[in-house]
């Protein structure tokens, strides 16, 4: 028989880990979506070598976007790992 209290505990631990992952990613999202662009004026004084972009402009035009894409692939992997750890993942 499945022990319902241990199931409950497992669910809670799983959700705690999931929430932590959510907050981590939200923090990264907030940093690259907003915070970094607040410093566009000083960042524009830096020029990326070879390519010639001012850094502040580059972050809004490409840098943050690349971070978002990479983040999403990482998130899919990390969340799946958490689900597997607790046995809540779908069968492959």
């Amino acid at each position: 028989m499945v022990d319902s209290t241990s199931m409950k505990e497992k669910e809670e631990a799983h959700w705690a880990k999931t929430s932590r992952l959510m907050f981590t990613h939200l923090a990264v999202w907030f940093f690259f979506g907003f915070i970094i662009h607040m410093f566009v004026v000083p960042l524009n004084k830096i020029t990326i070598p070879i390519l010639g972009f001012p850094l502040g402009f580059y972050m809004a035009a490409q840098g943050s976007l690349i971070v978002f894409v990479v983040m999403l692939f990482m998130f899919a992997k990390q969340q799946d790992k958490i689900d597997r750890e607790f046995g809540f993942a779908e069968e492959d």
Partner: protein
Amino acid sequence: MATKSAGGSDFLNNLGRVYGIYTGGFLAFVVLLAVLEQVGVPNKVLGYLFVFFTLAVYAIIGVLSRTAQVSEYYVAGRSVPALYNGMATGADWMSAASFVGMAGTLFLLGYDGLAWVLGWTGGFVLVSILIGPYLRKFGAYTVPDFLAFRYGGNFARGLGVLVLVACSFTYVTAQIYGTGLIASRFLGMPFELAVFAGLVGILVCSMLGGMRAVTWTQVAQYIVLIIAYLTPIVILSTKKYGFPIPELTYGQAIADITAREQQMLAAGLASVAALKPHIQPFLSYSPLNFFAIILCMMVGTASLPHILMRYFTTPSVREARQSVAWSLLFIFLLYFSAPAYAAFSKLEVYTNIIGRDLTAIRPWLFNWGELGLIQICGKNAANIDAIVAACKAIAGHPGVVRLQDFVINTDVIVLSTPEIAGLPYVISGLVAAGGLAAALSTADGLLLAIANALSHDVYYKMIDPGAPTARRLVIARVLLLMVAVVAAATAATKPGDILAMVGWAFSLAMAGNFPALVMGVWWKRTTATGAVCGIIAGFGLCLFYLVTTRYFPGAGVKYFGMTSLINPLTGAPLVDIAKAMALPNAMESFPTLAHPMANKVGWFDLNNIACGLLGTPLGFAVIYVVSLLGKEPSKEMQAYVDDIRKPRGRTVLEEKTT
């Protein structure tokens, strides 16, 4: 397309091959047209061939994917692999505004335009982390399905449908408007006719096969639109900088633009007022509005029903998450190229138009001048004589084009790049086909979202829960047709606010859906009453702010303490409220955009596009407070929420499918 067997498992197992052959076929078709052009086939014929060939392919896919099964019609049988769902979402997401308008916005606004690039990409992070996969596990057909289940029935469902229709209908009207614009420009059809021709293109994709047909045409449309968007700019970059990745080479163009800006100021070719340095921030939007637009577009993305429902079609929760990542990758390919378009065009305009003698203007410009899309010295730049005459009329004009003499419509930037690069007409035709694909695919997704909400949520769930499958599908198709015709009829009247309305859709979706969806998954204690009150309060406030600032600005000032928005550059108010309130038309309702206060008043200097910034926090607060005041949701409901949070196991909602 011979290998395509109507979406059966044969088809699903061979997706790579089918779309590989399709892509090869499309490229061969482009080459064929290029050859035809060389042997002297007129441009107009090439334009028609492009449009009709691509439309025919979409129609064939639409017909082959017809279905009589409810789950196929609403969620493509939940069998779309992550990668392909990502492509379909990319096409669903990128509208005519992204394809044709985005680069133009960046051209005009410089750095400030990047608010849209950021806003329309970063939202997918929220989709994946907060909402999408959980709704997939829940097993809904539509977003209102989830609201109804979680928040106690049909009242919440009705609110969900209301929000959905409010944000999707204006959006779809803008897409149909976009198809009309592209078809009329390239095929020379009258605009009204082109709108209804575009409508036929949209309907053949979605009528027979619902979500399944829309999915597989959207994949095909994504391939066309991304090839069309990248080809001209890759060639241009290779020609100019000897390197075929424009996203890397345009850094040089930006440095050149910045140098040229100083030069133009020094030479008296640009007035300080007319020149907006390309990389300097906060010239068009105040910092508050810049970040408010980013936030509203991002959160709006995560709340738009036609995007969320795409993730209902994947085979598993795991694939739903991967699919969001693929979606953003495919969207990123276009969005990180748009600033390159803007930079290359701007450099061309600044070096080859501004500062030139009026008689030595490059001829590509006259094609667009004839259509009224480029003006020099206040007159359409149709030919050299016209602009020389127009500039002569200006006292003290130096005889060379100055920045302040030059006005360009934002749509021209993408459409004219092939000509600027001196490419053959076939590339222009390709771009038109791409623009059309972008508009059609988005319109398909939106129409389906609206029609599904009406047929599934309103008809089946609220009016006649006993309806047999056959009747449900007939009703779904009839409603799809009706919504499409109403949207096309609205688009044919060329409503003035159409483009602004797309921005509004994001704020409305954000204020109406986001708090209820997020709290429904992430806080078990959220009660039905709390959610319903939150939706009404958040959506209501957002709608109130939009409608008042746009349609009743006088009343907004008089009764609600609104003040003028601020010019971000000078810090001065946009309108002198005291003077404007003294005018006889001050209290006019539903004024045109020419009204001195329309769209120019508000609270806290907040642009009305970003009204979600007011509604969403209110929505969260109301849900929180009202939920705490009420009784905890039942044990069963809390168990359901636990179920949604675990990918393993059956979906919470089991739909009757036969």
